[in-house]
């Protein structure tokens, strides 16, 4: 097992390299001149040339590529164009807000999804099951930022129960600011995870050991919670793990709705002001998240189900 984990870690290195290469291609080779984008169409040729020299765009492409890799590895993206903060500092300031939002949304999503999924599997075909199906169908369709806007208008603007924007200072205030954004993302997540719980539970319910437990005369409650749910949780955990990435991408729009600091608002703000170094860092950080979450899921999967590592 240790071998498998080590192999996964080593595997992640070329993956990271490929990610960075793709980011580099996207940033440098796709049409659009960053100098023109930053300085605008009225800039003189000299200004453009000066700018290109400053950020190293005049170097041969391979040299740009190598320095991009080195800068990414050392997380040295220079300073923001908009203010004098170093990009690394900006990321460090914003990261905790996005992480706490993602964690809180995942917790809210799980707390709603698992009981709903269990209830609808146990009452398959009854009203409660139809209700949860409608919840999921709508949850798949409603954009998270619209749900966020509705929560904001009703609970912050009209009722005044929650703050309208910002990230909050101090623990209580931060939790206060966190609740509505996390609820918006959590509800969307619950739509997906509750369906997963339901189908996984129904799958397990057909297994022999569940029938045996029932035949032994175990109470229905015991059968569901002790025998079926435990075994049904593995795919649910995987689904939850992968949904972290959807929540992370959803957080970009949610941060904008609630005027929260975070990696998403950092990236969106940088795009608006054409703050090239910050855009670049934002893209690298988000990509890094994707690689790390997938790596973590692979490792957790190997730990939970040793058979996974043996294949291939």
């Amino acid at each position: 097992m240790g071998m498998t984990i080590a192999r996964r870690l080593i595997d992640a290195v070329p993956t990271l390299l490929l990610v960075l290469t793709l980011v580099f291609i996207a940033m440098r080779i796709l049409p659009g001149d960053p100098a023109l984008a930053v300085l605008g169409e009225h800039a003189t040729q000299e200004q453009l040339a000066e700018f290109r020299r400053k950020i190293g765009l005049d170097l041969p492409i391979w040299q740009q590529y190598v320095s991009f890799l080195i800068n990414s590895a050392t997380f040295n993206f220079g300073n923001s164009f908009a203010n004098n903060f170093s990009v690394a500092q900006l990321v460090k300031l914003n990261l905790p807000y996005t992480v706490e939002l993602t964690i809180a949304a995942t917790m809210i999503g799980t707390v709603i999804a698992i009981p709903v999924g269990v209830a609808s599997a146990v009452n398959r075909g009854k009203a409660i099951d139809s209700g949860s199906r409608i919840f999921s169908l709508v949850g798949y369709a409603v954009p998270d930022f619209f749900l966020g806007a509705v929560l904001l208008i009703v609970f912050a603007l009209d009722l005044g129960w929650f703050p309208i924007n910002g990230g909050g200072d101090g623990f209580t205030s931060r939790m206060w600011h966190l609740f509505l954004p996390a609820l918006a993302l959590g509800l969307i997540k619950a739509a997906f995870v509750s369906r997963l719980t339901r189908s996984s539970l129904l799958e397990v319910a057909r297994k022999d050991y569940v029938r045996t437990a029932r035949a032994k005369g175990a109470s229905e409650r015991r059968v569901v919670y002790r025998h079926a749910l435990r075994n049904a949780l593995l795919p649910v955990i995987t689904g939850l793990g992968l949904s972290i990435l959807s929540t992370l991408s959803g957080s970009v729009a949610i941060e904008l709705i609630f005027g929260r600091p975070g990696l998403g608002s950092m990236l969106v703000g940088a795009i608006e002001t054409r703050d090239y170094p910050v855009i670049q860092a934002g893209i690298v950080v988000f990509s890094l998240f994707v690689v790390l979450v997938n790596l973590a899921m692979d490792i957790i999967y190997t730990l939970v189900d040793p058979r996974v590592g043996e294949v291939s």
Partner: protein
Amino acid sequence: MTAATDAPAPIARRAPPEGVLGQLWRNIVHEPLTLFFFVVLVAIVVIAVFAPVIAPYDPVEQSLLSVNEQPSADHWLGTDQFGRDVLSRIIFGARTSLVLGLLSPALAALIGTTLGLIGGYFGGWPDRLLGRVVDLLLAFPALLLGILVAAALSSGFWSMVAVLTIAFAPRFARIARASTLSLRHEPFVEAAVAGGVSHFRIILRHILPNIAGPVVVVLTLWIATAIRLEATLSFLGMGTQPPQASWGNIIRDGLSNMYGSAWPIVSAGVAITITVLAFNMIGDAVRDVLDPETRA
């Protein structure tokens, strides 16, 4: 069975006698909820196509005399902070959503399927690189990939098409590649190779018809995602640019005018939700016909 070059396609064999479309129609009519959303979908398409005729006002015409009006007989959904008629903007927004929501997955299907077919058929290192890149891109949720690509590109209609196409093409490439790999050594393909049929003709005549089913399923299921993605990117200011109406940028404008009127936000949000729901329902119906094994 003889390995004839014109062996019937597995999909065709599975298809019921009345044909794929007949079966799809029966499934839609059979289930009331699906039928309801089918009607909704037809209505949305009609609204989008005839937007200039249906919309009561010019969607970009501003009127400072009627700003932030509540819904009334003149303005069914009220007006926004520029005095523009919200209903007309929603109607024209349907155009934006449908054009991008249909065009991008179709382009992604074309590009992704072509790459997957060629990679899966010829193999070798280009195929291994393709497989690796596709796996990697698939690790990104479509939305995140869309945001990251949009961040690197400038905004505008064709950038938007490019963003959505790049976000979806890997999905098609994987399906096409995997299906092609499994067909590559089927007797009817090997027979065609032995018979000296050109690679181009084999791919077009023998492989493509057999992988069309799964590709169409993925295509219909991704339309809904494309519409939501367009809305999100326009909301973030990276997609459709004002004054052109898009459901996403209506919500963006509405957010800066929350104290004025909540009607633009609510109308656009409901429009997105209903449209995505309708496409999801029809996509599920298509999947049930073309790919019955994965039926939930």
